[in-house]
């Protein structure tokens, strides 16, 4: 084999250099920067891979962030007011906040409203225009461990929404099931500090979480219904002692339930499959969300949407992302990967075999009768953060009324900037 001459080497190097320098021209590929929730690989990567397969000219650079940090990290990125990221995941009640601050592109031209549940479109809208793409909603059910109930001789709750348990029944059963000294608990919320999961405690007693214009919390979140509802929650930790305190990581509470350390878990439909696959020997079932005996059933809803950064320079590609992700096929895939309550009507209509289980019957009924969205306000980011810390603190004791009044004043101060 003869060695390369200096000229041949130069030619080869030049050709290689040119080839390396022009891959974008040759393949005409666009890369979209996507910020997504830090769900497990097997729930995110197949979705993104499928999109790339269906759209070979678009590559996705997906950055996943944990639930506890994604909102703060997004604030930093978005306030830089650069085109990065092109697409980002949006917690549905934050749609108004991002839209008011110019962080979301209007999507009316890309979304056919008639294909979606009105609640989904409502959660995606701000001042009559769609700013986030409804990619699912959520519903909470009461998971219970049949083995632990059987061993303690406690009658388990029914899957029938007409026979849903009251909170008083949950506490009564929890007392029989919990052994705090042995780290065995009766009941836990999946999201122990999140207004999403805890607001229905006050709403079930008739409370309204924020003024109708979304700009005043005093007199609403510190009203008697929320003082009583959140006071009840506090007693789960301080008096009844049936709930494990301090479990704010939303990955930990399903672990407690799955490992048989907690008999009841009020959690999303989206953890059902994870529980099934991660704890194959766990004997569990679901029941409807509890309510107060002297109140009415109220359940939380709303979930993850995604939005487009208006400063994105890849207008064609982001439009294709929105269109394709909201297609029937991609919605079905997403539902199978992580079973959020679908907002696309066709999924409910064509996948009816899937929805014949107890859990989906409950979810469907709750969506129609008891689901209540979180308050609509451009100040939801501030509202949620202040209330979250207050709810967290309540577990350690303290006067609920005083804590809520202090939180309401702080919320009022912070959301005043959205007035006028």
């Amino acid at each position: 084999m003869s060695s390369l001459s200096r000229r041949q080497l130069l030619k080869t190097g030049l050709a290689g250099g040119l080839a390396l320098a022009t891959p974008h021209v040759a393949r005409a590929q666009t890369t979209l920067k996507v910020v997504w929730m830090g769900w497990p690989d097997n729930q995110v990567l197949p979705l993104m891979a499928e999109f790339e397969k269906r759209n070979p000219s678009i590559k996705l650079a997906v950055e996943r962030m944990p639930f506890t940090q994604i909102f703060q990290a997004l604030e930093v990125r978005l306030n830089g007011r650069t085109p990065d990221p092109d697409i980002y995941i949006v917690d549905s009640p934050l749609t108004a906040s991002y839209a008011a601050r110019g962080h979301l592109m209007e999507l009316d031209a890309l979304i056919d409203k008639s294909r979606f549940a009105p609640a989904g479109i409502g959660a995606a809208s701000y001042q009559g225009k769609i700013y986030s793409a409804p990619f699912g909603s959520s519903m909470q059910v009461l998971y219970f461990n049949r083995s632990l109930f059987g061993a303690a001789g406690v009658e388990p709750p029914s899957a029938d929404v007409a026979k849903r348990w009251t909170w008083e029944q949950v506490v009564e059963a929890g007392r029989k099931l919990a052994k705090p000294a042995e780290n065995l608990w009766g009941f836990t919320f999946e999201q122990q500090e999140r207004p999403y999961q805890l607001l229905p405690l006050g709403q079930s007693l008739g409370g309204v979480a924020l003024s109708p214009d979304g700009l005043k919390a005093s007199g609403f979140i510190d009203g008697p219904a929320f003082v009583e509802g959140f006071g009840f929650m506090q007693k789960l930790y301080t008096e009844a002692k049936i709930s494990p305190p301090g479990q704010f990581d939303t990955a930990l509470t399903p672990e407690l339930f799955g490992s048989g350390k907690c008999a009841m878990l009020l959690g999303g439909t989206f953890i059902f499959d994870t529980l099934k696959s991660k704890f194959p020997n766990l004997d569990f079932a679901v029941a409807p969300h509890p309510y107060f005996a002297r109140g009415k059933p109220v359940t939380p809803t709303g979930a993850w949407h995604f939005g487009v950064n208006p400063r994105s320079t890849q207008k064609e590609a982001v439009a294709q992302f929105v269109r394709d992700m909201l297609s029937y096929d991609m919605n079905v895939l997403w539902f199978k990967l992580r079973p959020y309550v679908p907002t696309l009507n066709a999924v409910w209509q064509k996948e009816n075999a899937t929805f014949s289980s107890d859990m989906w019957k409950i979810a469907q009924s709750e969506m129609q009768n008891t689901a209540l969205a979180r308050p609509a306000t451009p100040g939801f980011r501030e509202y949620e953060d202040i209330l979250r810390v207050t709810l967290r603190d309540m577990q350690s004791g303290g006067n609920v009324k005083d804590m809520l009044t202090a939180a309401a004043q702080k919320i009022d101060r912070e959301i005043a900037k959205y007035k006028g």
Partner: protein
Amino acid sequence: MPARRWIPYAFLAPALLGLVIFRFTPICLSLVGSFFGQSIRGDSIFVGVKNYAELLGDPAFWSAVTTTLIFNLIINPFQVVCALALAMLVRRPARFIDVFRASFLLPMTVSIALTSIIWSIMLDPTLGPVNGFLRWAGLPPQPFFRSADQALTTLILVATWKGAGYWMVFLLAGLLAIPKELDESASIDGANAWQRFFGVTLPLMKRPLAFVLVADTAANFLLFAPVYIVTNGGPNGATQLLMFEAYQAAFAFLNHGRSLAISTIILVIILVIALFELRLFRSEDETVA
């Protein structure tokens, strides 16, 4: 030769440039930014001293100032005393002394974020191994970070676990620089260990102690990660330090002007306290000069 006069400055230039770019410029920008507010859509608006005036009338700010001062009043002397005690322990050459020195230094190699996560797991009231040990020993489990009464103390202990070994290195260097003859002559003169420590060692340690105290004060005033990761300023504001208040203002409440005003106030507090500490530890030769 006149050109030679510039040589020291040429050597200093890269470090000075770094200081200007990475320290002084952000400080100036922060100071300027504290006089601005922001419209909802992100436009800057000059508001004069409004951010400062609002802070001075805000009980939440004063509560954070009080908590920060209490925290620093305890942690700074505590960390310096712990670091000095460790340095004294590993001062003398002995068998395996390097192993001991390294083991005290080990926490320094763990990032503050990881330290926070490790200790939040260790001290978890429900699942944490520390309470598991307490239960095993027949002692009542403790709430640690979940109690308004214990959270600040727990934070101080965790920060000291991480920081004491680091500050020990500087004090150990100071101790090793003290001529042995001084200690020996005091011993021959009949001074006991305490008298030698307070009469000989401590006066000669003024400079390293001053450096450690000032640097430690600055580090602790800027402590953020454990509060952000573990306590979120709670329970009931028990760990609401000024740095976390500044972070919340910027990234949770989207109020950048308030955040920058708090940062500027933290800087002023650190400067005042550092000057006081330097004066306190000024050695006699510096006073004469």
